[in-house]
């Protein structure tokens, strides 16, 4: 679970990123409920983490399936993760024992990769779900407005949002419906296109019917009628969803009206026989009708599937399509991962360019080049310089360069915190014109 891949480089003033958290894979819902952050709590937690000196930048990502802390630790190494973990448990008043084995920790580029995978929907309960990208965006923008982020987390979260967008645009990870109810509605769109001008009739007022109604409403279905054996239940669902409740006895009369028919009633035998549906199609002058049978046992006579312009899907058909879609989404994971790798490389290039060791090496290279040019030019003008004297001049100037670099190098490594160090590195790169390579 734990991984501190970059901890070996601790102390070299490398830009550190750390995260801890738990999600639907590591913690049951009862525990996730207890460690969830409200938006206000997320901001106060970020404040507290920064004030206590555990982190210099912090973002809290809390959704129904995950609670995660992302930050730039003041002090690098495993101590930072331990401090974050201690804060996490004490903030939510859960014992460390309860969280034992439930929390995962990542550091460095592994932490960045984790966030990118989260934003891409690869770490979600439903692979490729779209909501998580909005939740990452909200968590980041709230922390940004609150002043809890800095150059490092800004870079990481902006990268995550870009990854999330690209993965959804360039791969099929987020495409295709993954629930039976949504698959039914999406298939209806394959027949009718935009559902705005179309009508639906729902037989049954249970939870499954409600899910379908929700999807239909989201797609702006033109009109909605609900029929149920219990008229009160039908009226209740119709009231909540803005439809019209119909008496069960009037079913046959209204059967010819809807373009989409969804059934999920408990019944020993078919409620909608072939003859009944044949008359319904006749009543609608042969216009196509899309029937989703979610009942078990089936509500629609299987023979009805042969009727012209009737598209019938039962729960098994839809389940099979969902399974196909799941496999298709999984097949897209390598493409999504390659987008993530591309952005990790970009981030690493940016990070390397801002590291103390890197800036000192770059400065040394620059000074050495200048030194060689100056020695070559100046010694060409002086004729009586022996090879030994040339050697000595080279040694002296090299020592001078090392002494010149000693103080800035020490100052960049010690104190002023990560933000101060980054500002110093930025300034040096700018002054010496070393920033051209940085993206």
């Amino acid at each position: 679970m734990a991984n501190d891949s970059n901890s070996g480089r601790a102390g070299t003033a490398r830009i550190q990123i750390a995260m801890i958290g738990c999600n639907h894979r590591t913690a049951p819902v009862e525990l996730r409920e207890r460690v969830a952050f409200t938006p206000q709590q997320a901001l106060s937690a970020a404040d507290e983490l920064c004030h206590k000196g555990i982190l210099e930048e912090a973002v809290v990502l809390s959704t129904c399936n995950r609670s995660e802390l992302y930050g730039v630790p003041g002090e690098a190494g495993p101590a930072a993760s331990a401090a974050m973990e201690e804060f996490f448990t004490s903030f939510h008043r859960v014992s460390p024992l309860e969280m034992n084995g439930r929390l995962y920790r990542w550091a460095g580029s592994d932490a960045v990769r984790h966030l990118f995978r989260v934003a891409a929907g690869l770490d979600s309960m439903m692979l490729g779900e779209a909501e998580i990208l909005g939740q990452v965006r909200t968590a980041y923008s709230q922390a940004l407005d609150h002043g809890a982020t800095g150059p490092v987390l800004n870079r990481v979260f902006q990268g995550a949002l870009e990854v999330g967008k690209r993965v959804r645009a360039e791969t099929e990870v987020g495409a295709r419906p993954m629930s039976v109810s949504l698959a039914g509605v999406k298939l209806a769109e394959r027949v009718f296109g935009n559902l705005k001008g179309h009508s639906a009739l729902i037989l049954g007022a249970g939870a499954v019917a409600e899910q379908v109604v929700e999807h239909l409403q989201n797609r702006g279905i033109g009109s909605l009628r609900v029929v149920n054996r219990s008229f009160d239940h039908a009226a209740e669902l119709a009231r909540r969803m803005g439809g019209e409740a119909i008496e069960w006895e009037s079913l046959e009369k209204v059967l010819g009206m809807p373009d989409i028919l969804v059934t999920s009633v408990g019944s020993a035998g078919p409620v909608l026989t072939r003859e009944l549906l044949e008359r319904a199609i006749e009543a609608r002058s042969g216009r196509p009708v899309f029937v989703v049978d979610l009942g078990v046992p089936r509500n629609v006579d299987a023979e009805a599937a042969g009727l012209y312009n009737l598209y019938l899907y039962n729960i098994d058909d839809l389940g099979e399509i969902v399974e196909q879609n799941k496999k298709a989404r999984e097949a897209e994971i390598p493409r999504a991962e390659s987008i993530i790798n591309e952005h990790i490389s970009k981030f690493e290039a940016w990070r390397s360019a801002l590291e103390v060791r890197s800036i000192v090496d770059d400065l040394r290279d620059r000074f050495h080049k200048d030194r060689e040019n100056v020695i070559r030019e100046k010694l060409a003008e002086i004729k009586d310089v022996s090879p030994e004297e040339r050697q000595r001049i080279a040694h002296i100037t090299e020592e001078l360069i090392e002494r010149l670099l000693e103080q800035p190098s020490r100052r960049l490594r010690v104190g002023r915190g990560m933000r101060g160090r980054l500002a110093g590195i930025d300034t040096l790169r700018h002054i010496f014109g070393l920033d051209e390579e940085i993206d």
Partner: protein
Amino acid sequence: MSYHLGYLSLALYVASFFCYARILFSPQEWLGRIATFLLAVGIVSHYFALLERSRWIHEVPYNDLYGSMSLFAWLLGVTYLGLEIFHRQRSVGAFVTLLLIIWIGSLALFAPQAAPGPPAARGPLFAFHVTLNTWAYAAFALSFVLSVIYLVQDRILRSGRAGTAFWHFPALDVLDRMCQSGVYVGLAALISGVIMGFIWAHRLTGNYRWGDPKVVVTLAILLVYAAYLWLSRSANWRGARAALLCAANFLIVMFSYTFVNLYLTKFHRFF
């Protein structure tokens, strides 16, 4: 006469095809717009290629197989672009541009150097007659493609085996409406073209040439497409049966465009 503009059109159609094909699998509005733009530029370039050819031969280029087929392809592209804009639907673009590429690509393989012709002798009425009829055939060809997609989509919906592109294909309802629009365009062009043809024939020969096989088959085409439009709104035919009828009607168009032109008619044989 050079073929540079023709090759440029082909290149633009190929680029447009790749964009249309890409949006089938990964729908992106900006890429769709690029696809449409490339197709439009390809059509403009194709127009100038035809113009160059017609200036060279002093006639609308229908006097040889290459010119006639190139004109057909151009009108197919124009009709599709019109329908795409009217119905705001790009998902059949990949199929249409692929058809254009195959059509024009195969032409390029045996493109003959057109001989410079004498000034046009048959006048603008004749030119309109042939161009409008070719346009009608192009519109029917487009409806044929849409009908075939409809039938495939209908089959997939009934089999429940939905592949990646299936979720981005146009809905049956949209295909049906596009197909009908194509047939309306085709019928309007064909009726106008036939009327002009009758007037021209009457002026030239003093009779309407009712007995010419091409005229008979063309009137049959008018009849079967009118029947399609009527049946596609009837209870027992709307949907897949109408799409099948529309696809079958195109076989008569192909028969008229090839066999009748080449072997049955003398009055309508131009090459």
